[in-house]
């Protein structure tokens, strides 16, 4: 790793300790600065990687982008959040410090994952994210947050246990060629992929998909996700959905690259189809019956992970490019949706969809941005998600698997109906009586506007550096680095 990559880890790591030491009024500024500085470092590193001047490969660089977008926004948003949402929680100052320290720690853990290519190291890094996230989810100390944290840590730990068996099987399959003591780096496996035993590779990929797919929220291993996203603090929900799911996908993509390089793409495609379609199905139909705005967004995450899995399953160049671009688009859009939903929930003092009406009238900026985020998640133009979903579907219809593409399109329409219905329900309508109009929190609003620039920007054009990275990353996932 170069100095910039170390800085990406060192900045939030230092912010953890500073947030503990200093009072929360200073800690929240430190968190905002840390988020911004980390984002700048990541964008610079990604640009260097696209120019071939960084040690990171395209896949790592691409999966760092969600960290930059979401942590950058969450850092600034937290300046408002720790003042607004912690009111009423016992031990306010302690809660605030813990929240800020854990948020910075969570961001640091999430940034480690895409920087690694050591397959065992990836498992360790994901375990660290589990610990940090569980502590954040239970931070509010309510019965719901305790239950969500319990389910989260046990279900994802069981998933990661299966993922570790996949790592161990992969390691054991390389022992005959690389010796009994070797570093399980991804590039080592790619170099000997054709010599690895095909049955062992199939088993390793299956275990990795089930294990790390649990962490990614793929159905049917998704059951922790709506609870954790719903019960945790709002910035944590944004980081869970926008970054953590993509981190788990990054690990699966590394496994897929080795398997594709050795066996061709048919093994991974079949398995991606199964989990992708199941996730789309679960996400789309559960969206229709939600009552809680954050749980609605959580089911939307499952749906979008299904879209990405289906894109990888179609296997055409266009579909894989779309799936990888969707990782970035989903991160930005979901961060915007969660953060703006958190603002509405704080103003209306409820997360129940039925209890929030006239969101735009009450909060012109946050309400409007939530409406736009909802439409973007539903796949409407001109947002980035529209572009990447179109690429996935276009790639699917151009392949032999067009009947599956038709099913995907049908499920997307179901999800569209659910998302648009609930988004309109929350944002449309008159200002509720007794509620004041307007909002003044510059920090929170500016964080929302910054993320919105990403959401709309990637719909209008794809920057040249990003296009280069997407092209190279799709080749890596296909097993042709």
């Amino acid at each position: 790793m170069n100095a910039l990559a170390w800085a990406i880890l060192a900045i939030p790591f230092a912010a953890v300790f500073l947030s503990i030491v200093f009072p929360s009024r200073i800690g929240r500024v430190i968190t905002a600065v840390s988020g911004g500085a980390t984002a700048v470092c990541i964008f610079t590193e990604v640009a260097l990687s696209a120019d071939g001047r960084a040690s990171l490969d395209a896949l790592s660089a691409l999966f760092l982008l969600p960290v930059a977008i979401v942590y950058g926004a969450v850092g600034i948003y937290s300046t408002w959040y720790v003042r607004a949402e912690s009111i009423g929680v016992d031990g306010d100052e302690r809660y605030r410090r813990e929240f800020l320290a854990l948020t910075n720690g969570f961001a640091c853990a999430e940034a480690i994952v895409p920087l690694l290519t050591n397959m065992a190291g990836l498992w360790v890094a994901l375990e660290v994210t589990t610990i940090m996230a569980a502590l954040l989810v239970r931070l509010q100390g309510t019965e719901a947050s305790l239950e969500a944290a319990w389910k989260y840590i046990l279900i994802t730990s069981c998933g990661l246990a299966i993922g570790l068996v996949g790592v161990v099987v992969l390691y054991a399959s390389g022992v005959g060629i690389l010796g009994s003591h070797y570093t399980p780096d991804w590039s080592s496996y790619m170099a000997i992929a054709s010599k690895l035993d095909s049955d062992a590779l199939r088993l390793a990929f299956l275990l990795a998909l089930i294990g790390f797919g649990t962490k990614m929220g793929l159905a049917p291993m998704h059951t922790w996700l709506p609870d954790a996203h719903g019960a945790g603090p709002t910035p944590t929900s944004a980081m869970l959905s926008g970054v953590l799911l993509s981190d788990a996908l990054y690990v699966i993509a590394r496994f897929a690259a080795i398997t594709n390089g050795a066996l061709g793409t048919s093994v991974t495609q079949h398995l991606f189809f199964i989990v992708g379609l199941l996730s789309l199905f679960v996400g789309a139909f559960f969206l229709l019956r939600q009552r809680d705005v954050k749980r609605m967004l959580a089911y939307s995450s499952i749906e979008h992970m299904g879209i990405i899995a289906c894109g990888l399953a179609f296997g055409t160049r266009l579909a894989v490019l779309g799936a990888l671009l969707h990782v970035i688009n989903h991160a930005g859009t979901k961060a915007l949706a969660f953060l703006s939903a958190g603002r509405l929930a704080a103003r209306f003092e409820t997360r129940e969809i039925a209890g929030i009406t006239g969101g735009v009238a009450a909060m012109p900026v946050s309400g409007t941005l939530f409406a736009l985020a909802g439409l973007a998640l539903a796949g409407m133009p001109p947002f980035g998600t529209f572009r990447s979903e179109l690429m996935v579907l276009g790639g699917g219809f151009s392949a032999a698997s067009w009947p599956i593409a038709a099913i995907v399109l049908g499920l997307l329409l179901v999800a569209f109906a659910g998302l648009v219905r609930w988004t309109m329900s929350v944002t449309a309508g008159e200002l509720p009586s007794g509620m004041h109009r307007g909002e003044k929190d510059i920090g929170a609003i500016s964080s929302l506007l910054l993320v919105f620039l990403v959401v709309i920007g990637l719909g209008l054009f794809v920057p040249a550096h990003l296009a280069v990275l997407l092209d190279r990353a799709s080749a890596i996932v296909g097993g042709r680095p």
Partner: protein
Amino acid sequence: MLHALTMPEAFAGTIAMLLIVVQLTLFRSVVIGEFLRVYSLQSWLLAAISLGVGIVEHGWDLIALAVLTVIFKAILLPRYMQWLARGISVRIELPARINVLLSLLMAGALIGVSILTSIQLPLHQGAFLPKADLATTLSMVFLGFLVAILRPNALAQVVAFLTLENGLFFGTITLAPGLPFVIGILLLIDVLIAVVVFAVLVRALVEQQAAVSVSVFERLRG
């Protein structure tokens, strides 16, 4: 072709068999203390395997891990969890429709699946326990899942997860002895699960004066 087992192979094979037999006793245990004793005994066996592999492969890190395993997993954590659970009901309800015999039959089927899966794979080069290492690992992981599924009891599920982790511990030592840092992390996760999750869970159950059933964690649905 059959060949005579070497002493390390025979030692490791015996321990592997004992690990599974010990885990099978969870299907008839009805008190949390027994669950914790099973976890402790399994951890002693794991320490023996780690020591054996460390001596054969001259790996001081594995020998150190054997010592840490005894201290933390075999002695301190089970006692700490026993101490935590002293204030709550220790009986663990058995599932209504699945008795011990049926549980054991299901466990046997899972062990069979593990063996059939493992014999397909040529993962024997350089491994300490030829032909049985992956089968034992998968069996322990599957049995851990089965216990967690069959016991609707939060504390039992935590201990079942810890025995599942012991399967991973075993698999990493025997199949991937070049990854001692992973084993170290597994040890840390056990400590975390025992100290944080178990403690939080017990506190919540005591505060809510609830039964130890996981039904206290069924509010979030849909």
